[in-house]
């Protein structure tokens, strides 16, 4: 059961990655973050229903699309609210969130949907004899999440553009003086954010049902994972996601209504006791 929680944590970490990157590089908090995940799941679903192909293939279509959407949003909206009074940032992204949710509601009605992965969703893996059994799907999902984090970590730590990310995060004005085109960096960062959250949304849709209004809850999970794990640390976000996942699973065992509540309470406790998070640092790594 705890392992289930850990595996769910991987999913939460994937949601959180985008939030972490966009905040680290641009100090942007995008309230529509969760809605983008849900939107991607719906688009994947439309694709699958239209073509009859597996959702895994849909990933290859939706992800590039989400990168483009991310760049589009950055250019049209977010570039105007980076660096200025954060209230406008919040209001703008809040408005965007409402708009997206209701567009989805209008297009797809309030009925929940799911992405059909056939048998894969039910297969399980036995570890340690018959006592510990984990689903193959959650395991795959977790592995993908870790892979994404590893890739991102390498990107930020080792490449020229990754260095530019960190420099921009430290001091955007001076980064400009180094020849870094800040708008370009922001666009890439946000594209990464939207792509990872789209992937997370699709994986979520493969296992559970999703509906138009799910976005905000996902935003909160992402947010809590980042805070618990610590701002500025990608691996911290993974841990944060895992802790949240485990807390929720334990909560659900006690009482189904307590699932979210326990997660929130753990978050609040971490906030009170160690506000910088477990691995909190000041910068993006």
């Amino acid at each position, binding site marked *: 059961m705890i392992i289930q929680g850990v595996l769910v944590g991987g999913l939460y970490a994937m949601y959180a990655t985008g939030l972490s990157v966009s905040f680290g590089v641009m100090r942007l908090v995008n309230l529509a973050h969760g809605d983008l995940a849900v939107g991607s799941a719906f688009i994947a679903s439309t694709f699958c229903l239209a073509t009859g192909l597996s959702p895994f293939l849909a990933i290859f279509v939706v992800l590039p699309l989400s990168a483009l959407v991310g760049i589009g949003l950055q250019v049209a909206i977010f570039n105007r609210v980076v660096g200025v009074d954060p209230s406008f940032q919040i209001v703008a992204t809040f408005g965007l969130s409402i708009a997206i949710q209701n567009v989805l509601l209008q297009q797809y009605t309030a009925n929940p949907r799911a992405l059909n992965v056939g048998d894969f969703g039910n297969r399980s893996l036995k570890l340690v004899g018959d006592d510990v059994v984990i689903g193959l799907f959650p395991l795959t999902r977790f592995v993908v999440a870790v892979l994404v984090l590893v890739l991102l970590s390498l990107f930020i730590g080792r490449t*020229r553009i990754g*260095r530019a990310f*960190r420099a921009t995060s430290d001091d955007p004005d001076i980064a400009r*003086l180094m020849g870094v*085109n800040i708008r370009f960096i922001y666009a890439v960062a946000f594209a990464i954010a939207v792509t990872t959250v789209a992937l997370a949304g699709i994986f979520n849709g493969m296992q559970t049902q999703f509906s138009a209004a799910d976005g905000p809850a996902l935003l909160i999970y992402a947010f809590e994972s980042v805070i618990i794990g610590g701002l500025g640390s990608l691996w911290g976000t993974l841990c944060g996601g895992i802790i949240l996942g485990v807390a929720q699973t334990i909560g659900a065992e006690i009482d189904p209504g307590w699932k979210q509540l326990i997660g929130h309470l753990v978050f609040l406790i971490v906030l009170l006791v160690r506000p910088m998070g477990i691995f909190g640092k000041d910068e993006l790594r």
Partner: protein
Amino acid sequence: MTLLEVRNLSAGYGQFQALFDVSLNVNEGAAIAVIGANGAGKSTLLKSIAGVVDVIFGEIIFDGESIVNLQPHERLNRGIALVPEGRRIFRSLTVDENLSIGAYSRRQGVWNRELVYEVFPMLAKLTDRRADKLSGGEQQALAIGRALMSNPRLLLLDEVSLGLAPIIVKKLYEILPRIRATGCSLIYVEQDTNQALSASEYAYCLLEGQVSLEGKPADLSREQIASAYFGIGVNK
């Protein structure tokens, strides 16, 4: 061989104008000092040349081309590098990574990591140290080294002596001739007039955003400099 020509520059921050009708020339290979008291506009002048401060009026011509409407990164690509006031190195990057970011523009030239480490041996021992763990002098060396990595033709040094012990300042200024030898021109802005004047061949003094005195350091008397610096007895 005028590398940089600043003509009748007026610049400022929003509603606050800091420079009024400033003109300045830098020849290829020269070292120019800009001195003045706090708030005289020296930093603003460098920042206008680098492109981080908006120009209200006037012209900046670099290598025959007007650069007034270019973004900072475009000016860097043409060879203008600024070592900003207060060091402003990237805290979370290591010494080596700071230098790498300096080379982001991929401009070709003599400067590379090895040469920077040779010129600043203190940095060579700290390549993997996080930049925020360096001392003031080391950070200043890093800031200069980082700017050099872009192989600039014009290096703008904004108050590099600020907050550093005199010995360290002396060491830094000893390195400057080596930089000039590679074909880079320099403008240094300083509050410490002695150091700046002894290292340059032409000087400008700014007072409240205007040029109050200019000339070869050898031709300027102490009294002239003092009155131009402080504005005593100067007819406005």
